[in-house]
């Protein structure tokens, strides 16, 4: 296993890949990870998990029959952020707060219309569910926002006392104009799926060869280490790309995620990411030689960083500096913005190419490490 390590013989490689594919085809867990997991993730991120601020259920209690009070209540009803249940008394919505069918209550008090006439509207009351602090503060802020818009439309100064803002902000979000989290979560889940296949699955299958003693038998045949590694990399590369394609098709056609770039760019980005993912998987399995340890290390070094430190869920810009520095060592950090660019913006090669370059660099590093470890393995 010395000088001939770099040699690649087509016949040996073909035989090894055929064996690998037969094993993949007979192993139900491979299919679970490659095809069932993407479906599950897309479903979760597409429907169940939403970081969006739309549609929180609240109740609006209108205790005043005046026109301004009804107009305010109508503003709440039309707000895209709330799903409103109208009520006449606080007592009648108490049950909704308890059972969670309402996350907040806006009370427009008696005499509200009178106050508006006198250009001094009494304060409205906003009751929130303190057991869910995030939602509570969200309800408070947005309820106030709706009231302010209403006040502006009524020609009232922003209550209670402040003067109108000198500059009116009218936010507009580019690339994801509706700020749908689904649009960036779904491409992000492609990163998760490719990490699972590239690193976790690869780590498991190579470690399995060690555990079952087949690695030893392989090493005693005339095959080179390069052939062995290639026979692991190529099938799982293809599997990961197939799974990526499945995710993309689902994202675009089932979830309506826009796809503004080209397929070429997507393939380039995904292939570049698979180099470090597969390289890390090989390195982990060759250094642990044990499926259990390999899976633990793969989860810790590949899955969790991809999940937490890649900008997939948590924005890197808002992380503390030391953690931000760590994110530079996470290959997925370069994949997520690239994927989001390809999906939501288009082929901006100026952004994609440096990311692709860095991912390939990580890939080279991991492959070099796995070669080193695999070669001296039986000692």
């Amino acid at each position, binding site marked *: 296993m010395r000088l001939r390590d770099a040699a690649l013989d087509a016949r040996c490689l073909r*035989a*090894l890949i055929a*064996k690998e594919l037969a*094993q993949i085809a007979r192993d139900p867990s491979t299919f679970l990870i490659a095809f069932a997991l993407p479906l599950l993730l897309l479903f979760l991120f597409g429907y169940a998990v939403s970081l969006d601020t739309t549609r929180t259920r609240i109740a609006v209690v209108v205790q005043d029959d005046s026109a301004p009070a009804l107009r305010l209540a109508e503003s709440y009803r039309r707000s895209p952020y709330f799903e409103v249940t109208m009520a006449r008394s606080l007592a009648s919505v108490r049950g909704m707060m308890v059972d969670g069918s309402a996350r907040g209550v806006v009370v427009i008090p008696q005499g509200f219309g009178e106050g508006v006439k006198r250009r001094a509207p009494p304060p409205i009351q906003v009751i929130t569910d303190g057991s869910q602090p995030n939602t509570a503060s969200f309800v408070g802020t947005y309820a106030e926002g709706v009231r302010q818009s209403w006040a502006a439309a009524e020609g009232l100064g922003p209550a209670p006392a402040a003067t109108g803002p000198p500059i009116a902000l009218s936010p507009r979000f580019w690339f994801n104009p509706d700020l749908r989290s689904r649009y960036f979560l779904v491409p992000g889940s492609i990163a998760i799926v490719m990490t699972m296949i590239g690193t976790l699955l690869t780590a498991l299958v190579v470690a399995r060869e060690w555990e079952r*003693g*087949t690695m030893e*038998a392989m090493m*005693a*045949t*005339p095959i080179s280490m390069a052939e062995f590694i290639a026979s692991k990399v190529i099938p799982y590369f293809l599997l990961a790309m197939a799974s990526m394609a499945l995710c993309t098709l689902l994202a675009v056609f089932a979830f309506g995620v826009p796809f503004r770039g080209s397929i070429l760019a997507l393939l380039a980005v995904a292939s570049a990411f698979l180099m470090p993912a597969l390289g890390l998987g090989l390195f982990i399995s060759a250094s642990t030689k044990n499926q259990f340890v390999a899976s633990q290390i793969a989860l810790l070094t590949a899955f969790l960083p991809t999940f937490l430190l890649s900008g997939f869920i948590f924005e890197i810009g808002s992380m503390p500096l030391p953690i931000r520095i760590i994110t530079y060592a996470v290959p997925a950090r370069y994949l997520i913005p690239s994927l989001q660019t390809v999906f939501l913006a288009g082929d901006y090669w100026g952004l994609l190419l440096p990311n692709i370059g860095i991912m390939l660099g990580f890939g080279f590093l991991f492959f070099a490490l796995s070669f080193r470890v695999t070669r001296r393995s039986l000692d």
Partner: protein
Amino acid sequence: MDGPVARADGIVKRFGTGAPALDGVAIAIAPGRITGLVGPDGAGKTTLIRLLAGLMAADAGTIEVLGRAPGDARDAIGYMPQRFGLYEDLTVQENLDLYAELRALPRSERAEVFGKLLEFTDLARFRSRLAGRLSGGMKQKLGLACALVKAPRLLLLDEPGVGVDPISRRELWAMVGDLKREGIGVLWSTAYLDEAEKCDCVYLLNAGKLLFEGPPAALTGRVDDRVIRISGFEERRRRFLTEALDRPEVIDGTIQGRSVRLLLREGASFQPPPHATVDLAPPRFEDGFVEILGGGPTGTSRLAERYRTIPETDRPVIEAKGLTKRFGDFTAAEDMRFEIPRGRIFGLLGPNGAGKSTTFKMLCGLLTPTAGTGAVAGFDLRSAAADARAQLGYMAQKFSLYGNLSVRQNLDFFAGAYELSRADAARAIDEALDVFELERVAGRDAGSLPLGFKQRLALACAVLHQPPVLFLDEPTSGVDPVMRREFWTHINGLVEKGVTVLVTTHFMDEAEYCDEVTLIYRAVQIATGTPDDLKADAATLAGLDDPTMEEAFIALIEEHDRAHGVRAEAA
């Protein structure tokens, strides 16, 4: 005869800091011969084979295979690792195809080679079966076939015979005999010393050092006329062995059925007890090994001396009444029946996967029987499994103590697990450290100890609470014969005190220590009796003269198969 196909000189190989795994070993493998690499576990056999296969580099010394470095001669080496190197999720044919491709067997020759190999291994009917679903013996044959696809000149077999049934093992020997006639140089490594006698030339390794090289007869020749068999005292043979081993003229002794077999010091003569019959016995490879190691331990067990005497009882101490275990439609053990009286050693004998462990686990209360009942020390397994467990000491196969706890911590743990009071525990642990000579290593991690100390510690932990019943799961397979003697000296001593012992083993030598054995084959008991009775039955059945336990087992299996139709193929 040509020069050797492989040669190694002055090989040193170290792992980490401790003693080297191989220390100045030299070996030469001649073409057309079976060279045995024999030694207990941990002797360095696998390391030497891996060096010859070019899977590792030696720290010192030279290795040549067909005049080349081993890494450059891979196309001429067939190698079967310990677990056969098969892909269990590929079929028999796919495994063969893979190895044929990797070894660059031309397509035109393939049909002929596969045909020959499948016929040779008798696997033709199972071409499309997944390798993982073959029996142990068939896996071993397929492993051999895969190592043979491109007719190697050097065949390296790493413990091919371990744990497979004796019939498969005998077939394997016959197959390797054919290869030898084709001029292949075969290296066969084994921990079974009886296999050494079948080799043309033997290298005996112990703790990384070469103890002997040459034809096996040269080793047994050293103890010719010094091995005697004494019989005619029936029930007192264990006490007699103890006394004999304490005499200076006896350097080794074992129980063999109803007789006692002794190895005498060079030039010594032995005064037999009155009424006993003394015969000269043919020496075995093991006798020579023990002689080189300087003889076995003396006969008195310090453990037994301090052990309580287990009260007499008329009832059987261990009872199995039709114990049956099924997993789905697979029957792991069927209708196991035996009774073991107080102070006896009973053996469950059979190859891996035959159902020994299942029966054992049911008697320990670790598996609930599908049908049948059993009792240990009067406690029914179904209604009082926990009470039954409290009555037994259990020593598991291999090393099942906590490797990263110290010797003393392991003892502490087991004292706690057996609910000894603080004072009893302290006394029991001090005694154990003294009896098993473990004081010196009391603070060391159990995992870092040499095999012999590990084994003493395992036994010490199992008997801390002085149980009336001992369960031993392959207690001495793979350990060197001196360690094995030491172990059985303790067990024999305990049995004299009234302890009842149940042993499982696939190791025929261990069966000889038993008062009674039952042969388990494919989930059923095919014969039960004293080792001598079973051998006598086999002698009549197969017309053998003085068969070994293994030969007896084979004869009884064949008889069983005859009585139950052809040998079922679907194991």
